[in-house]
């Protein structure tokens, strides 16, 4: 992993549609403060909106932790969405476009992965799901990281 440091800056509950709006607003504000450009902000907010809705609809509610990161001179934002729902049985299938279990377009999870720089899912059946996404200011995540 990359050497990153940061402390949890906020922890927001996700239990209703109103909370989704609050999560979007919070992510937009935090991203703007960290110096994200408008396009990056929009991408991150959209990814957060998708993942928060998954937490609400499939996970039965949960919370999101947002952490400001610094790694060398780059700054980023990490968002972790946690729920204690039924978990995802087939993660590969859930990530594929067009697969949906809730009547949506089936683009939420896969789309969110394309909108951010780092993406990971930790899901256990009947225990819950944690999705973590990281976005770095300025786009390209550490070029050296790929060599490691």
């Amino acid at each position, binding site marked *: 992993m990359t050497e990153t440091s940061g402390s949890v800056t906020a922890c927001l509950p996700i239990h209703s*549609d109103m909370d*989704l*709006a609050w999560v*979007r607003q919070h992510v*937009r504000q935090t991203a703007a403060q960290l110096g994200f450009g*408008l*396009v990056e*902000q*929009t*991408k991150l*907010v*959209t990814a957060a*909106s*998708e993942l928060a*809705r998954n937490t609400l609809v499939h996970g039965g509610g949960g919370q999101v932790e947002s952490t400001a990161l610094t790694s060398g001179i780059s700054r980023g934002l990490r968002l972790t969405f946690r729920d204690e729902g039924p978990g995802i049985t087939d993660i590969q299938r859930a990530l594929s*476009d067009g697969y949906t279990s809730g009547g*949506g*377009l089936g*683009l*939420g999870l*896969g*789309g*969110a992965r*394309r*909108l951010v720089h780092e993406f990971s899912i930790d899901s256990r059946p009947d225990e819950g799901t944690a999705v973590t996404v990281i976005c770095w200011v300025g786009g390209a995540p550490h070029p050296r990281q790929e060599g490691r």
Partner: protein
Amino acid sequence: MADHEAAGERNSSAQEVGEFLRRRREQIAQRWADETLFRTVFTMSRDEAVEACRAVVEALAAVAVADQVDNLGAAGFIAVRDQLGRMVASRTRTGAGSTQIADEVAALRTPVAELLRSELEGSPSGRTEECSVTLTALMGTLRLVVLETALNAGQELIDRQRLQLLEVATPVIKLWDGVVAVPLIGTLDSARSQVVMESLLDAVVSQQARFAILDITGVPTVDSLVAQHLMKTVAAARLMGAECIVSGIRPAIAQTIVHLGIDLGSVITRASLADALAYALHEQGSVVVDRNRTGTSAR
């Protein structure tokens, strides 16, 4: 068990306090009328304030006699809830916060407690203490009732505003003969998109529109659910014979939609509302002539 026995006693402290409140209703009302809470609400006449105080004292007495000192939902409070609500609303309008209102309600206790003490002079000290504890509990409950009323009023306001927002934020505008537009603003959740779809389809019928423009300039985030709502609206309009154009797609939104993988290929999209209108006019054969320019070219 102890509580039960106390309640079963013929002359419990609650009943005694209740009877005391009834007996001294007039005096308490006169004293309360000069307290901040009533004085600032009923600025027009003192009689009005006294009248309001009497109602509150009567309610407290009824609650105490019914031995429901700790019960927020006691029948006695129901009678004065409306009045308390109006008082809270009036205090809030003049800028008082809920803490301040709670403090003002708490201030009502002192004059009653003084009266009670003088009334019970001479009776056994244990009895006096019991009664003043009961009175304190009763006044505490009144304070909670007032705060609850204030909170409910706030919640009602929020609910009403949410409903208003639902209607206000989705006007359908006639741009041209046969061209209607909806400027979408804010978050497009399921409830709002339903309202949008209905009002747009109604307008398509009533205006006999062949073109409907959905402008998303004011929508900050377009995720897959918002896109799905948009596509459903477009499909519904198409079923009614109207062609739908989605306009106001900003560069950031366009990139996000591409990354998300949403296929808007079947929908006509334009960058701005002006472009969408130009497209609609062109399609229906209307020609807009710029008089200045034709004038120049004719010369």
